């Protein structure tokens, strides 16, 4: 759990782990927050969403992340600079972390490419992970038994996925389901491999 931050709630002063959403200290010790699905995209790509509002902020306060150097420095782990050794992935590989009960799996972000989604069977569920660039990802729950043998057709700005054994089709504009595609999102987090592995030492790792 190198480099994980915690948050404190004002009402009780309890501390909550950002990665696990669990209270680690205080009167709410042991309580868990519900992880809610979110997606990552860019301002340009988000404009196709029907009803979307953007958090107010100072006018174009900067055109990069303040942590950009940290992201790019593979030798820097956390604030203090720990050591981490693992042969499965590179220390600062970015992964999509998925949990279900006591099971976890890490999907390397590089496994998911535009027009090359990842179909994943995990903890009894069929999941679909799609990407439109390294910072545009989303995870959806597929209906049981559907899209087992998917056919993927590339569109100009997205793709369609059909089931070779049936008429069902789902379609995406980027990572956003188009009208008529009804899929439930599944909550995932993105993290550096060292952080995910530290929290979940027994995590599986997805391989193509």
């Amino acid at each position, binding site marked *: *759990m*190198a*480099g*994980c*931050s*915690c*948050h*404190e*709630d*004002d*009402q*009780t002063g309890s*501390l909550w*782990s*950002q990665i696990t959403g669990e209270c*680690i*200290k205080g009167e709410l010790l042991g309580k868990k*927050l519900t992880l*809610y*699905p*979110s*997606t*990552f*995209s*860019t*301002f*340009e790509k*988000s*404009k196709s*969403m*029907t*009803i*979307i*509002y*953007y*958090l*107010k*902020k*100072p*006018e*174009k*306060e*900067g*055109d*990069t*992340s*303040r*942590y950009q150097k940290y992201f790019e420095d593979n030798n820097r782990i*956390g*604030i*203090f*600079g*720990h*050591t*981490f050794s693992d042969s499965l992935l590179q220390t600062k590989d970015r992964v999509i972390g998925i949990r279900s009960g006591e099971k976890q799996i890490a999907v390397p972000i590089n496994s998911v490419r535009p027009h090359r989604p990842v179909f994943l069977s995990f903890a009894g569920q069929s999941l679909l992970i799609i990407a439109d660039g390294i*910072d545009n990802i989303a995870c959806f729950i597929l209906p049981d038994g559907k899209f087992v043998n998917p056919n993927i057709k590339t569109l100009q700005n997205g793709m369609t996925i059909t089931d070779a054994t049936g008429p069902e089709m789902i379609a995406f504009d980027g990572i956003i389901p188009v009208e008529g595609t009804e899929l439930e999102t599944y909550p995932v987090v993105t993290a550096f491999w060292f952080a995910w592995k*530290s929290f979940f030492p027994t995590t599986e790792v997805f391989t193509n």
Partner: protein
Amino acid sequence: MKNWCVIILVLITTGSLIMAQNTEIQKETIAGHTLYEVLEKGEIPGIYNPEYYSAKDADSFYFENEPLMIVANNGIAHAYSTWHLDHHEIVNDRIGDLPLAATW
């Protein structure tokens, strides 16, 4: 919904640590892990009572390639610039009937 402020506390596994010597940092052990308090409460201010731009108005404030974290509830989405969240770490928000803390 609970309001959240931000204390950045760094949770480090024991036995895998090389750290700079700093006797001023408060630390304690929780469930076998060392917890370091590296910032004072509120030093990175969380966002309370967030306000939003429409898509049209946001053009003046957002770069096209600006990365966003997006949360949706019942067809309405809120988008948070992660570059902006770098400075705040957390947004106390509500989308319809859904209270949430968007953390980054």
